[in-house]
């Protein structure tokens, strides 16, 4: 029914619907589209980087442009691709997994998305306005503070705005998971994906403020003449490194934990087994999140912090290997004794185990401070973090997308194309990055625009570039799969995978109110319990009654637009104070919208019981 309405509606109406929506499922789709777009953009930048490095002393791009490429590749992939794609999955799935009708703050959810998107667009505007930031995604001062032009200003303002969106999103999910769980859904009955979303949101809450502070200081250094990071004015550039990594290291776990959650759900579903060692898995997740804040200085072993600091951070970092190891073994023992069905979602999860184990191995190797003096800032590090972020996060996103695609869109992604995607991407990934471990130890530092002839680095770089093309082909096949599936894909029922958790107890895609009646949860894997006792679906926890739903609003979009406009004002006022007018206009739009939101009562609307009954009879 909803499909036919969608087809009859004009494009403008559909557009307006998405601009104003506060529905977590639609916001999830918007995160997916925007994150997917930035993923392709970052991928394009990666291909340009690899093409430049295909042979020694290549001149495909200039040195300055190369630095812009590496900076934007890193920044885009972390902040504008991986983060939103994780948020896409969290939005699409978490409320369903806990039996909620929406997130706790639907308005904020929408605001978080639009802030992220406008921040990302602001950052990428730099390409057309005199050059992108060029000081690396880590933006180490003083290189970043003295970088000419406005590139780094766009970095600072763009990340500040999109970071605010992420922080809002994180808080929203925390409150949602604490407050909105269905009756009987205790903490220790939550699916692992929800658990990891919960811990990730906590990490966002504590980590992003460090970035916010760092970016503010950098903004003042660049735009208003302060000298926080300027040694000649009594500042200290190492402070930026600390602030960045106090954020930056937890950020890695912010990305990887939800991917762990995806794998836990996927392994369990496709082995038809309960997750092995559920309690241990939960505590391992919490422990990783906690330790994640204790290890930031392992990015700074060569800064000269002294042997005591280096030793403490080395040992703390090694400690993270323990909970991570617990997870790997629990996954293996979930598979053990199971009835393992290998499809695309499962392939990504299975491909993850060897890839991520390699990434974890090099992680422990990097933790050894005295050995890190050799690895640091070399291609060894590049290989390591691509093994954890591609082999962990990206594999997790692909697995999650194949797994939940039917729930999000009502159609199953094509299996054959899915397998082609996996194998080309998997082979390409290892071709690209495995050899880079050796390149690093053979003396190739990272962020090198050219490497010289006759230094033994040609062969490895060539292999690496060839691998990158396989990855690109894999990504293109996936895109094709998405298109072909949306045209003539197999329609999915409510529970195409014989699932175990609540999201599979409602239709695919779910109605906008998710659950006609809130379900009663009687244990871990609630749907599995009901099915194993011969029931078809969940037992409701409440009689059929009116459902209270929030109204849509254009205000989140307008507020973000206001900040976007103000961002340009902040940047260009360094040349001419007349640009400050943009700051006033932008902030005026933002504050005006906040005023409207505060003064105008918006109590939402009710879906009446009778309408629900009518729907059910159809």
């Amino acid at each position, binding site marked *: 029914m909803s499909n036919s309405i969608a087809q009859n509606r004009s494009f403008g109406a559909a557009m307006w619907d998405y601009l104003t929506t506060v529905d977590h499922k639609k916001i999830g789709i918007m995160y997916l589209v925007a994150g997917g777009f930035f993923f392709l953009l970052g991928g394009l930048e990666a291909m340009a980087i690899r093409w430049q490095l295909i042979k020694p002393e290549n001149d495909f791009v200039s040195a300055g442009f190369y*630095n812009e490429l590496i900076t934007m590749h890193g920044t885009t992939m972390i902040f504008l691709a991986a983060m939103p794609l994780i948020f896409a999955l969290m939005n699409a799935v978490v409320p369903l997994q806990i039996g909620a009708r929406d997130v706790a703050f639907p308005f904020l959810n929408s605001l978080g998305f639009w802030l992220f998107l406008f921040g990302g667009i602001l950052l990428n505007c730099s390409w057309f306005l005199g050059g992108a930031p060029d000081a690396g995604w880590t933006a180490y001062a003083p290189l970043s503070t003295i970088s000419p032009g406005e590139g780094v200003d766009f970095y600072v303002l763009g990340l500040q705005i999109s970071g605010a969106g992420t922080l809002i999103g994180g808080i929203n999910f925390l409150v949602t998971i604490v407050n909105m769980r269905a009756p009987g859904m205790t903490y220790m009955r939550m699916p692992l994906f929800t658990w990891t979303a919960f811990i990730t949101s906590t990490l966002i809450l504590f980590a992003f403020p460090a970035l916010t502070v760092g970016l503010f200081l950098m903004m003042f250094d660049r735009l208003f003449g302060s000298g926080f990071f300027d040694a000649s004015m009594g500042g200290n550039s190492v402070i930026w490194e600390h602030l960045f990594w106090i954020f930056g290291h937890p950020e890695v776990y912010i990305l990887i934990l939800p991917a762990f959650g995806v794998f836990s759900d996927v392994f369990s579903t496709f082995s038809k087994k309960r997750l092995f060692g559920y309690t241990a898995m939960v505590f391992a997740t919490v422990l990783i999140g906690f330790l994640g804040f204790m290890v930031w200085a392992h990015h700074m072993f060569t800064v000269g912090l002294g042997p005591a600091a280096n030793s403490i951070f080395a040992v703390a970092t090694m400690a993270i290997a323990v909970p991570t190891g617990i997870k790997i073994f629990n996954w293996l023992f979930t598979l053990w004794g199971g009835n393992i069905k290998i499809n695309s979602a499962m392939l990504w999860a299975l491909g993850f185990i060897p890839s991520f184990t390699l990434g974890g191995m090099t992680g422990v190797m990097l933790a050894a401070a005295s050995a890190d003096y050799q690895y640091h800032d070399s291609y060894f590090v590049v290989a390591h973090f691509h093994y954890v972020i591609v082999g962990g996060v990206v594999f997790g996103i692909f697995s999650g997308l194949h797994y939940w695609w039917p729930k999000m869109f009502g159609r199953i992604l094509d299996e054959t194309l899915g397998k082609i995607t996996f194998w080309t991407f998997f082979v390409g990934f290892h071709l690209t990055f495995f050899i880079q471990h050796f390149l690093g130890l053979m003396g190739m530092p990272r962020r090198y625009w050219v490497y010289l002839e006759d230094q033994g680095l040609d062969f490895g770089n060539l292999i690496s570039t060839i691998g990158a093309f396989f990855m690109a082909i894999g990504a293109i096949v996936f895109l094709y799969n998405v298109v072909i599936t949306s045209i003539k894909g197999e329609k999915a029922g409510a529970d195409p995978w014989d699932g175990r958790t609540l999201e599979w107890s409602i239709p695919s895609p779910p109605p906008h109110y998710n659950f006609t009646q809130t379900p009663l949860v009687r244990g871990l894997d609630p749907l599995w319990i009901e099915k194993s006792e011969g029931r078809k679906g969940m037992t409701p926890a409440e009689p059929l009654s009116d459902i209270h739903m929030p109204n849509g609003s254009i205000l989140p979009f307008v507020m973000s637009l206001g900040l976007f406009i103000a961002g340009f004002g902040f940047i260009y006022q360094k040349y001419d104070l007349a640009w400050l007018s943009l700051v006033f206009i932008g902030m005026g739009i933002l504050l005006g919208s906040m005023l409207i939101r505060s003064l105008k009562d918006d109590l939402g609307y009710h879906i009446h019981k009778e309408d629900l009954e009518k729907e059910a009879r159809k």
Partner: protein
Amino acid sequence: MKGWMGKIRTLSLFGFMAIILSGCGRENLTALVPKGYGAEESFKVILISIAVMTLVFIVVMTIYTYVLIRYRQKKGQENMIPKQTEGNKALEVVWTVIPILLLIIIAVPTLTTTYDLASTEGKEDAINVNVTGNQYWWHFEYQGEEIQTSQDMYIPVGEKIYLTMRSGDVIHSFWVPSISGKMDVNPENDNVMYIEAYEEGVYYGKCAELCGESHSLMDFKIVAVSQEEYDQWVTDMQNVDPEATPESTTAQEGQELFANSCLSCHAIGSSPVAVGPNLTNFGERSKIAGVLPYEKEELVEWILDPESKKPGNKMSNAPYLNDGSIGEEEADKIADYLMQLKPSEITTKSAE
């Protein structure tokens, strides 16, 4: 069929050989063939951690392979429901405790070498060199010796040389993979590290912290020579006459041009770190500007258009490039002058 197999075999053998040959990288650059104290200590920790981690990887992959073969869904069993196990306390303890033990095996040598490599024992009596990192060149000042040089650092083999490092602009990182791991060169504080080369040779040094457009072209060399050769080099460098008149007339003219157009940024003789590299022993350099082949044409081209060779370097803004005072002819003479600056018998060739 057989010919086809043979071809595959030859091809794979060839490929394998290529990997082995290029496997460890360029001598005196790669960290995989350590030729100095720091590199050797790091390499030991690298080997220990690789050994332990490979063990872990083998265990994981064995279980993984077994599970996938043994428990993969068989035809006709699509609906088989396996036993729903909750977990196993004994196993959980096993895979918590064993990793902790394995990590201790890595942690102990890590900590001892970390402290060892940070030690400054005997620094007062050793050769001390102040290192300055600049966009995109390195300066070396030998403490108490009145020797200043850039790009090529001469050291005696078998001696600990203490480096006190600071940056003149942005953060750099000093890395000579075959001799020692790296250390950052910060603008606000001195970082101290020591290096010791075991064998004579010219070692490749790299900047390892992104420092701008020509980050990848900020190479330098460590020239490790015997103790006698080093002593000779020190004496020679101390006796340099910065104003010595060259023999050939072109070089003499070059000297005058150099004095007019270049000396405001470049020094000859022992003077503190300046805008551009110290050129006292330019005639003995292994490379021009750290990366270009040491040939006269290259030097002339470099003088006339430094930006094309090393983007973003400070020489690109030199006044002589704008006022047209240096043409090809003049650059040629300057090159003549620079390339005869050979104050010492001890050169990069002595190290080979």
